[in-house]
């Protein structure tokens, strides 16, 4: 007989692999995406886009378009500027940060190739596109700023002259003592890294329908977004509509990965077009539009060095990151967060204390760069972990040995990183030991040596990481951004004893609704199937942060937990009144009020609900039962709940062709309390696949003139199933003590370190040839160059 576990308690759902209740609906084709919505009198918009990366708009001739069949409106930047106030993507806590104001459509010049310039609204999208083809825009080309270094060169063209330069933000961190440490170090390793741009490529592209009803001054927006409250606030403030009359509905979302939480010009324009027309207007980005207008990610050039003593102890790190973000900083979260996390996360798993870093965020004539899954983490991780491997090679140590000698000991917490991050409790050594055993590392090394003699070149790479999760108001709120770090939940018991939970965290396919249902079921004491979780509608769900930065489980989950406990207390109070029993002596289990001591069932929850809703006359005088509760929770302990883990990558490099066959990836991860192992593992796997995409395939390629040259899925390579390895996952569980739930985030862990482990593995495979690579993605051309073949 197996031993009993905590999962054998009644109503035990936390820690159980339950499938997503909404998965069947989506698989059955019953998903409701914005694209599926057809509203009465709805119109469609197509945009005329700039062919130039930087140009003055001389004139716009749209007369022919206005006369085309089905066309209802042709609008320019001037038209929309009359309705919408400009926005600026800065936050106060990034001192000295600059960014130019933005409008839905440009009024005088375009700053990236593909920027929408004119909106054509017609009865169908095809008619709108027919008309858009006839719009004649005269441009006067301006010199383009494309290269990361050219942007900062004296005398280079300045994209926004009013800002004085192309520098958006300059940050410095210096603990002091770095020069001394490097001067006296036994060994120094250094490298220059290049990280290309890539983008989210969600299965569902961006989609929005704005529906303005002038009779009620009511704006309803159906929006494929992960943050409906943020957009409610933005539409209200920039179009001057009272917040109570702006409703944002986020229905089913086909992937977001951070991409669908930024303000896009086309989306803001759609709201204005609906106001101008008094009719619903739909915009769905097609794949090319996605490539040229969705945020891109990364784009860093990092020079970094690490100093180590004779015993292999890492002493210091010195880092210089330049990152290029497009012609302005994204709104409302800014484009500095990525660089900020890069230079604060460098070396975070290790014990060294001396750190210096310089971050320059620069403007260029490309589409905006901003937060995407694992913001900054993959850069910090790849740079740190590659340098650690270089130290291992230089000091003739094994890659596990060098890490176990330098990682923060598991019993050293709480502690603070040199950049000021506070760690409550991490488990690097436990994870590292587990990874070594899962990989069967010694056997892999032996096999590698044996195969090398046969001309087969396999590489093994590992990468440790920390991940920022559960962010408090220090993340956005203190910078003045109206982005909430708290969440709210309403839980109600229906007259037949079912439960509805309306909560501010949102579902984008990652399973938020599933885990919220599990948490409520466990803490209220009812069957999960009797709980309906409702998300994504600002009209019905309480205001909250929704989904970003790995917060759904940790913050949303704790909100649901506390709300469920509050409701349970209310239920037991009225049950006590009905049963003439002290409520402390009662409990709820499987939808029954039970005797807490004997577990003996007393009365069904449904019966309590029936009495409360229909026979309140039978309750003792003065009893006012509260079978609905509203509860908010804001994180208050540590500013972030850091998680940690380590990944291993095993691959085979064809040293003649530069092609890589990824054989296997292992991940050991500590996200605190695991609510649903199935979903946690799938989050990690999906994240790893995105990390491997960045490592080997995905790159937005630009020509010298600032044109994106691979804006289609034929040319922009996403990782596909055939190329992806098995991904084996293990866990260490260190719950946060800041919450009763103990959960931290996990959504970005896979992406954080997958590319770093792959980088180390490729370099390991190349080691016998003396080549090395420090650029992502590692394309066959770059690998062949590193090997000296071309």
């Amino acid at each position, binding site marked *: 007989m197996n031993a009993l576990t905590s999962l054998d308690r009644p109503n035990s759902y936390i820690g159980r692999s339950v499938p997503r209740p909404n998965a069947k609906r989506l698989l059955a084709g019953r998903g409701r995406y914005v694209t599926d919505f057809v509203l009465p009198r709805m119109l469609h918009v197509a945009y005329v886009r700039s062919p130039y990366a930087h140009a003055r708009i001389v004139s716009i001739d749209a007369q022919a378009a206005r006369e085309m069949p089905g066309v209802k409106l042709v609008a320019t930047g001037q038209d929309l500027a009359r309705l919408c106030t400009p926005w600026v993507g800065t936050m106060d806590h990034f001192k000295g940060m600059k960014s130019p104001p933005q409008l839905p459509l440009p009024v005088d010049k375009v700053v990236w190739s593909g920027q929408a310039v004119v909106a054509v609204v017609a009865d*169908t999208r*095809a008619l709108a596109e*027919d008309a858009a083809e006839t719009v004649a825009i005269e441009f006067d080309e301006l010199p383009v700023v494309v290269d990361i270094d050219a942007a900062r060169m004296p005398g280079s063209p300045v994209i926004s002259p009013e800002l004085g330069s192309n520098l958006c933000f300059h940050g410095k961190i210096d603990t002091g003592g770095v020069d001394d440490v490097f001067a006296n170090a036994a060994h120094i390793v250094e490298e220059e890294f290049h990280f290309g741009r890539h983008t989210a490529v969600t299965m569902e592209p961006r989609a929005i329908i704005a529906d303005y009803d002038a009779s009620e001054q009511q704006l309803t927006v159906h929006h494929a977004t992960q943050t409906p409250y943020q957009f409610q606030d933005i539409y209200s403030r920039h179009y001057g509509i009272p917040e109570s009359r702006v409703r944002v509905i986020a229905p089913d979302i086909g992937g977001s990965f951070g991409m669908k939480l930024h303000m896009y010009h086309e989306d803001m324009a759609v709201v204005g077009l609906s106001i101008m027309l008094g009719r619903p207007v739909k915009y769905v980005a097609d794949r090319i539009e996605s490539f040229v207008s969705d945020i891109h990610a990364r784009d860093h050039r990092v020079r970094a060095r690490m100093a180590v003593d004779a015993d292999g102890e890492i002493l210091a790190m010195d880092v210089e990151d330049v990152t290029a973000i497009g012609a302005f900083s994204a709104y409302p979260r800014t484009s500095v967060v990525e660089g900020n996390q890069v230079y604060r996360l460098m070396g975070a798993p290790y014990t060294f204390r001396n750190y210096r870093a310089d971050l320059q965020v620069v403007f260029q004539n490309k589409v905006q760069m901003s937060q995407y899954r694992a913001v900054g983490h993959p850069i910090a991780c790849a740079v740190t972990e590659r340098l650690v491997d270089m130290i291992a090679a230089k000091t003739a140590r094994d890659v596990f040995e060098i890490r176990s000698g330098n990682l923060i000991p598991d019993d050293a917490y709480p502690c603070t990183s040199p950049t000021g991050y506070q760690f409550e409790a991490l488990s690097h050594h436990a994870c590292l030991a587990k990874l070594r055993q899962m990989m069967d590392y010694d056997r892999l090394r032996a096999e590698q040596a044996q195969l090398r003699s046969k001309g087969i070149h396999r590489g093994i790479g590992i990468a440790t990481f920390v991940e920022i999760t559960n962010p408090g108001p220090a993340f956005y709120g203190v910078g003045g951004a109206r982005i909430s770090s708290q969440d709210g939940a309403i839980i109600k018991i229906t007259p037949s004893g079912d439960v509805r939970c309306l909560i501010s965290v949102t579902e984008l396919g990652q399973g938020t609704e599933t885990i919220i249902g599990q948490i409520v079921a466990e803490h209220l004491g009812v069957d999960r199937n009797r709980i309906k979780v409702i998300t994504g509608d600002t009209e019905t769900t309480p205001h909250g942060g929704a989904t970003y930065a790995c917060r759904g489980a940790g913050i949303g989950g704790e909100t649901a937990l506390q709300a469920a406990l509050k409701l349970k207390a209310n239920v037991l109070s009225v049950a006590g009144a009905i049963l003439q029993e002290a409520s402390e002596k009662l409990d709820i289990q499987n939808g029954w009020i039970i005797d807490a001591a004997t577990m003996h069932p007393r009365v069904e929850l449904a019966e309590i609900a029936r009495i409360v809703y229909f026979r309140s006359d039978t309750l003792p005088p003065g009893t006012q039962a509260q079978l609905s509760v509203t509860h908010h929770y804001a994180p208050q302990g540590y500013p972030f709940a850091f998680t940690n883990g380590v990944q291993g990558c095993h691959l085979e490099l064809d040293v003649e062709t530069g092609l890589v066959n990824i054989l296997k990836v292992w991940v050991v991860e500590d996200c605190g309390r695991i609510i649903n192992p199935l979903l946690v593992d799938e989050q990690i796997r999906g994240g790893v696949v995105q990390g491997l995409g960045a490592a080997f395939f995905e790159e937005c390629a630009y*020509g010298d003139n600032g044109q994106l*040259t691979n804006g289609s899925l034929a040319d922009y390579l996403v990782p596909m199933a055939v190329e992806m390895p098995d991904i084996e996952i293990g866990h260490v569980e260190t719950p946060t003590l800041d919450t009763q739930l103990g959960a931290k985030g996990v959504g970005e862990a896979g992406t954080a370190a997958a590319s770093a482990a792959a980088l180390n593995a490729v370099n390991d495979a190349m080691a016998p040839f003396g080549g090395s690579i420090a650029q992502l993605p590692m394309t066959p*051309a770059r690998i*062949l160059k590193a090997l000296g073949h*071309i």
Partner: protein
Amino acid sequence: MKARAFSYARPSTVMEALETFADAGEDASYVAGGQSLVPALALRLQAPQLLIDIAHIEALRGVELQGGWLRIGALTRHCEVLTDPLIARHAPLYHAAAPHVAHPAIRNRGTIGGSISHSDPASEFPAMTLAMGAELELVSRTGTRRVAADDFFIDLFQTAIEPGELLVAIHVPVIRPGHRWAFHEFARRRGDYALVGCGVLAEFSDGLIEQARIVFFSVGNTPLRARQAEQCLIGKRLDEAAVAAAQALVGGDLDPPEDEHVPPAMKRHLARVLLGRLLGQIMRQDS
């Protein structure tokens, strides 16, 4: 993006198709599997006023042995090329190439005739047509003609097919006992257009190479025969030295276009590696 509006015709005979095209003038386009044309319409790269759907013309179907030739109807779909036993036996380079052509959903609709007519320089079937020395049967209102593969591929997306003419069938000279062949391509992901691909067909007699056709794709505007490499093999026994000699010449046979991401030097390097591997395979088959 949405395609521009167009009219649609669905003839059921070759003659009807030819007449429909002639009546429409040049602003018509045949459509077979639609796997190249429809994406081009959706991107508005092409906007014909009339689409003539040839997919229901019986005369363009079927695979059959006719004397020393295998006749493959133009409408034979990629997925049929993959599984047809006659093609596997008599036109083995098509069979070997088929798994590398796109993905199952595309192979279910795309046709070999469409692929050869479209003549994407990175496509497998046009190159293997050249490698096997096939002939293309074309029909117009003035009659039928057969064009040798060596004369068929003219330039980027340009073949010997005249406007309005239809590719009816591909005739492949069947494999003979002395034939050896090999196919492979280097691609970043399975199903992608290749970085470099190659098919080799060699005829041996008494252990010596009597004839060789080495055809590369994805290295220029059309599929390309590596003529110097072919030439140097004739009359030789296929051994390490012969392979190395062919490899040394292949760079000069190819003229890959400038490309920032896959520079010509890389294409030449990959072509050398690929040729070495394919000839090595044939060498091992032989012994």
